[in-house]
């Protein structure tokens, strides 16, 4: 009917746009939204239960069987709490920020294929909310927008610690976006399409078709690390480091706005797990022993199982690893992940041309790696040269003399 929808490859729009199509799209949207909300409540319960198990605690066990309704109880409690807006805050931005956090987390889920293609009433329907031609770029765009929620929340609170947290968040998320994008490029290069449905289809069939194995594990590992940093989850949660920043960007928030940040965080965990599964673990691909009918529900089961596995992995990391120091975090992003992902991108591109190019580029990347390591070494020596009192926190710590005066209470700053 119109140029706008012809460009989309979704088979739903093949016969044009009419009210039945609109109803189907609406059902898909509402269904996905409901599932996401339900999944978030379960995810919060799941995380609390698993973490308590790892720490030899019992965890929530009062509301409902196994404490399943604890999240609901918390939500109701938060909803009826007093909604405070600090006097120093920027009221409009303060109110806007939670929504800027939640919406991108939900939108990302729209491009994730959570099942195969089903045929209902003569229409073949993709089991995903939308399959736009830009596909995976929407994930990158939305995770870029997600920065604003945290950053503006920190700034609008009109308070020091949230502001520090907001600045950390913006620096951290922008840094890791580069590595994230670079690994997505390797996947896109292998697939030859940006569409998430095409990415999933190209991995179908067998486990060695999964991008995890086809691309040689490194991009998947980098992507997972970058995703953890992008969602501000432990061990990269310097944005809400309680020991340094009180509560981080959401210190001044209360009531339902705080609940929205909480929701966004867990929603991000789920959607990013789903994106990892889509990009590297075949999405809904998996073994189907049930023939024709199995081909409808087994993909969904596989998708859910894989996504839950990654949710568990994230919780596990939180239970196992201590928080990283902020400068180490930035070092990891800029000096390790970005060069490695860039090098691996070149190697994969070389091997896609032919073997000789691949070997040649691999050698070139290794040589460049040595050069880069040498450069980092020289840079680190220059930087740490004069700082012997305490290990530096951040690039330019307090001058040692002032630090000594502050910590030891020695007005002379002299020798002990």
């Amino acid at each position: 009917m119109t140029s706008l929808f012809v460009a989309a490859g979704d088979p739903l729009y093949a016969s044009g746009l009419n009210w039945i199509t609109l109803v189907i799209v609406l059902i898909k949207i509402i269904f996905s939204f409901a599932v996401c909300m339900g999944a978030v409540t379960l995810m919060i319960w799941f995380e609390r239960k698993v973490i308590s198990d790892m720490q030899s605690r019992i965890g929530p066990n009062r509301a409902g069987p196994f404490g399943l309704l604890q999240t609901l109880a918390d939500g109701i409690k938060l909803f009826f709490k007093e909604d405070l807006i600090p006097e120093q805050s920027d009221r409009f931005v303060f109110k806007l920020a939670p929504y800027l956090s939640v919406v991108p987390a939900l939108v990302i889920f729209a491009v994730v294929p959570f099942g195969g293609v089903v045929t209902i009433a003569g229409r073949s329907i993709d089991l995903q909310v939308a399959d736009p031609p830009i596909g995976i770029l929407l994930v990158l765009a939305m995770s870029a927008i997600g920065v604003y929620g945290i950053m503006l929340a920190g700034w609008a609170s009109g308070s020091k610690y949230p502001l520090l947290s907001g600045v950390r968040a913006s620096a951290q998320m922008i840094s890791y976006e580069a590595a994230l994008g670079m690994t997505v490029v390797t996947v896109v290069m292998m697939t030859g399409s940006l569409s998430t449905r095409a990415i999933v289809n190209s991995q179908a069939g067998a486990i060695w078709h999964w991008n995890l194995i086809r691309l040689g594990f490194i991009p998947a590992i980098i992507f997972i690390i970058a995703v953890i940093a992008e969602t501000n989850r432990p061990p990269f949660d310097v944005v809400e480091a309680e020991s340094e920043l009180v509560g981080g960007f959401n210190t001044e928030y209360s009531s339902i706005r705080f609940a929205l940040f909480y929701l966004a965080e867990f929603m991000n965990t789920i959607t990013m797990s789903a994106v990892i599964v889509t990009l590297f673990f075949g999405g809904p691909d998996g073994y189907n022993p049930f023939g024709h009918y199995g081909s409808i529900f087994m993909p969904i089961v596989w998708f859910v199982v894989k996504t839950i596995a990654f949710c568990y992995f994230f919780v596990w990391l939180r239970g196992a690893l201590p928080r990283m120091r902020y400068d180490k975090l930035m070092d990891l992003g800029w000096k390790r992940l970005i060069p490695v992902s860039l090098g691996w991108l070149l190697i994969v591109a070389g091997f896609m041309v032919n073997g000789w190019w691949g070997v040649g580029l691999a050698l070139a990347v290794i040589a460049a790696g040595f050069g880069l390591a040498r450069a980092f070494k020289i840079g680190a020596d220059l930087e740490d040269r004069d700082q012997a009192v305490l290990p530096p926190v951040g690039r330019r710590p307090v001058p040692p003399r002032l630090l000594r005066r502050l910590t030891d209470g020695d007005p002379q700053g002299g020798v002990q």
Partner: protein
Amino acid sequence: MTSLLATTVAIPDVIVFAAGAVMIMIGALGVITSRNPVHAALSLILTLFGIAVLFIEQQADFLAAVQVIVYAGAIVVLFLFVIMFLGVDRNEDLDAEPLAGQRSMAFVIVLMAVGAIIALGAEAHWVVGPHSVSGVPGGPYQNVYNLGRSVFTTYLFAFEATAALLVIAVVGAVVLARRSGAANAEQPDGQPENEEVAS
């Protein structure tokens, strides 16, 4: 008025265009009327989103995605970063003009520009440019393919030259930043750094 609707347009196209145009206009007005720099930056994001919507309407999907990722996602974040770091997020005194006669000059130039655009539009055609110039939409998912083709074959030199220019700019910025940083670091509070280490 006939030139306004010289070609037949589909209703959804018009709706999308109107939505995008409203977003752009509200954002643009917000950028110049907000007294708070952060609010102005947020209005700029709204404008960039509106432009992304218009890109999609023109079937430039890839450009729309890049618009959001690069401009809304990175550049405005850097603006905000600087605003937050430098603490200029206070209401500026807007009464004093930095340059004499700046406001009246700006008014005249804007009037001239708008007049020129209207004259050009009335002369030629209201809708400037056909759909999908760089890559003919040959079906689903062709936009990115065609764009990639033309960037890496026909326009390879311009593309690489732009990339080289950006690298040079980045290196230059780093060199300048480090030089001034080293000069400041020599005197944190009136003394060279080496002294503390010795004590």
